[in-house]
């Protein structure tokens, strides 16, 4: 219902909440993997978990910012929000890669 209001990129990336669901699925998958295999090395597990969580958070943020009905972010052009999203993702993944070990 709100999909048509959303500009093109955000529709792709945010996709009506399915994306968040997708990341939650990822998260569960990582945790299950760790439960099977064991938490050695622990830092790898943590980095996997945190990567899922971080990206989900960023996606939610983007969704909020892009949503036209949201009063707070009215003046923010969606492209700007998207650029922020991309940048934050890149930084997050750098940290994750470092922590992955």
């Amino acid at each position, binding site marked *: 219902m709100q999909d048509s209001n959303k*500009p*093109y*990129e955000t*529709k*792709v990336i945010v*996709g009506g909440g399915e994306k968040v669901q*997708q990341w939650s*699925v*990822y998260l569960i*998958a990582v945790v299950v*993997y760790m439960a*099977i*295999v*064991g938490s*050695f*090395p622990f830092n790898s597990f943590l980095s996997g978990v945190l990567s899922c969580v971080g990206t989900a958070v960023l996606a939610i943020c983007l969704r909020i910012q892009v949503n036209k009905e949201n009063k707070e972010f009215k003046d923010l*052009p*969606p*492209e*700007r929000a*998207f*650029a922020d999203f*991309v940048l934050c993702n*890149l930084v997050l*993944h*750098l940290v994750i*890669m*470092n922590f*992955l070990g």
Partner: protein
Amino acid sequence: MGELTFLVHHFADYQSPLHHIFLVRIFPALLPVEFPVILRNGQKPRISGSVIVIIDLPCCDLSANNRDSQICRFRALYTNRWVFRKVGIELYGLNKKELYIADLMLAVTSLEETYEALRTFEILGIERKADISPATCPLIVENLGSSSSSPKDLFYALKVNGILRCDISAKVFEGIHSKLQAIVKDASSLLDFYYSIGSLVLIKEQGFKSNVLLGDADGIFHSIKALSQSDGRWRHSSNGPGSTIHAAGIALEALAGVVSLASTEVDQSMIDTVENDIMKLFDSLERYDGGAFYFDDKLLDAREHQGPLSTTSSAVRGLTAFATVTSGSLYPPGDKILGLAKFFIGIGIPGSAKDLFNQIDSLASLENNRQSKNDSFSSRKTTLVSIPLILSVPATVLSLTKKDQLKVKVSTVLGSDAPPLTVKLMEAFSSGSKDSSVVENQELKFDPENSVHLLDALPKSIDVGKYIFSFEIVLHDPEQKKVYATGGQTQVLIVVTGFIKIDTAEITVLDSDLGSIETKQKLDLYGENAVSLSANHLQKLRLSFQMTTPHGHAFKPHQAFLKLRHESKVEHIFVVGSSVKQFEIVLDFLGLVEKFYYLSGRYDIQLTVGDAAMENSFLQALGHVNLDLPEPPEKAARPPLQPVDHYLRYGPKQEITHIFRTPGKLPSQELSLTFLGLTLLPFVGFLLGLISLGNLKKFPTSVVPAIFAILFHVGIAAVLLLYMLFWLKLDLFTTLKALGFLGIFLFFVGHRTLSHIASTSAKLKPA
């Protein structure tokens, strides 16, 4: 090792032209290595320039492979001081030969020290002139010819010339002569007199002029005598510090020079006064226990302190010099002269060159008195200081078994033959007891071939043991009693050894209550034994034997021990006691149970008997005894821990196996790959969703923005690829650097793309 050439720089401050004659000791080696340093033939040394010397240095590694600088310490022996100089070795290629150059600053090696060395060589009969003369003589000539040389330099240069006999022109002597006469007239201090008068004497001896004469001999004599003190000592100058015996020796030499050079005879009364002074000087002679006499100056000022050797040698030199040129009643007591000789001989080999010179020169003065100088100028009788005769026993250990003969040698201090005399063995005391002498007045026969005095056979009363023999020298010609100093009796410690008979040796095990013998075995203590006994704690072990000397007396050795050693290496040592007849030890095991720590088992028996006078001392394993001891109570002492073999400390250590941390359980390959596939699935789904949603239609179609858009996606993909590389291979810094570049690119491109899209959607919106 090999021949090395050092370039030696020395400095004009040091007035030492003869630096190249010295012995060098190198200390980096464990033992000091000493060798002479000579000049390369044909090399003309210059005083304030550089000199090349050749040294063989076994300690410095100066092989072709080792190009580093090294520190080689060396000590110039004559200076008696450490000369620490960094020998920096630099390598120069010179005509394809490596020339090692080093800076060595030599401390003072003076004419005085050179003279001392040469004189020592001369007395000892070591011929060095051929090496030294070519290089030294030019410098002596230079020194003598120079007008700035001090009297001391002239004196020692002339002394060196006296030994080396360099070719010095008469003109040079003429110049020195007039200079010295002037110095003598003006001299006021003792050393000035000494050097100038001594130089004049040397000039006369070296054949320059036969008429070197002192004009005012009486006056000069008086001036020197004025510096003397009433106790025979001399001061250096009239307002100088205290008087010393060392200065007295110097003064006496100077006075002797005056007397020999005097144009008219010196007043006899003055000479008598000096002789009195000399006798008074002998009152301050000090004594060591062994009969050695010496002079020592007791000075408060440590800097001036010369030491007994230096003082005594100065006094002896002065005394003999003065006695040579005068006649009269000068006659120092013979035993004191002998004592002085014993002092010099008793020093052994001194540590420094100066001490060696003092010792050897003084001994030579005492020896050479026998050559009376025929003074052609006057018919003075020369008074001789007595020549000491030294009695020595070359071999102080005599063996009865080998029938050694007692040999005694009598000679002068430097080893020349003595006049005809007889040596008598007056007494011989056993060193332990002060009983009467076992020998009375035996005469030793003289063997002219070997110049030794022999005692044919040791008297029967001399048995095995340590003795003190007293010898006396009796000169054949009673007239010579004044010429030679023989001293009284000389004591020498002699050890007589022999083969000791050991017999009736037996070892028994006794019952302690009844005293009955359980086992008894005879031992042959000359040969091998291997007894095998067994005993328990109620029994006793007894060992007994007798020892007799070759002459049939009972012998008590210094050491007689019995050792019992357990298998566990615990040892017990007992002293074998002696009674009148025999040696016996009884081990009562009942009392020794606790000492043995209750250890039962096999004990090895070892007997040790030894003495200095016993030629057949032995340490023998006798066999073993199996001891049966009761069980130890709880409170018993434990046997002490046996010492670990110290060499084990240096043996190989226990090997350590390193245990690595067990690697964590890693998942199996397939499981990991499955999950990898699972994670990639959503990405695929994402792409499918993209296409289905039809968003790709919104992709900008016109060329320029399209390129930017593509670049944007490429940029993001590149960053992700960089992250993959970072995880796999790169380190953070490289990654950050690359990320910086990519980030800038991406920012630029992304900005263009997104602004383009924004502008298109803005355009669309109103529409």
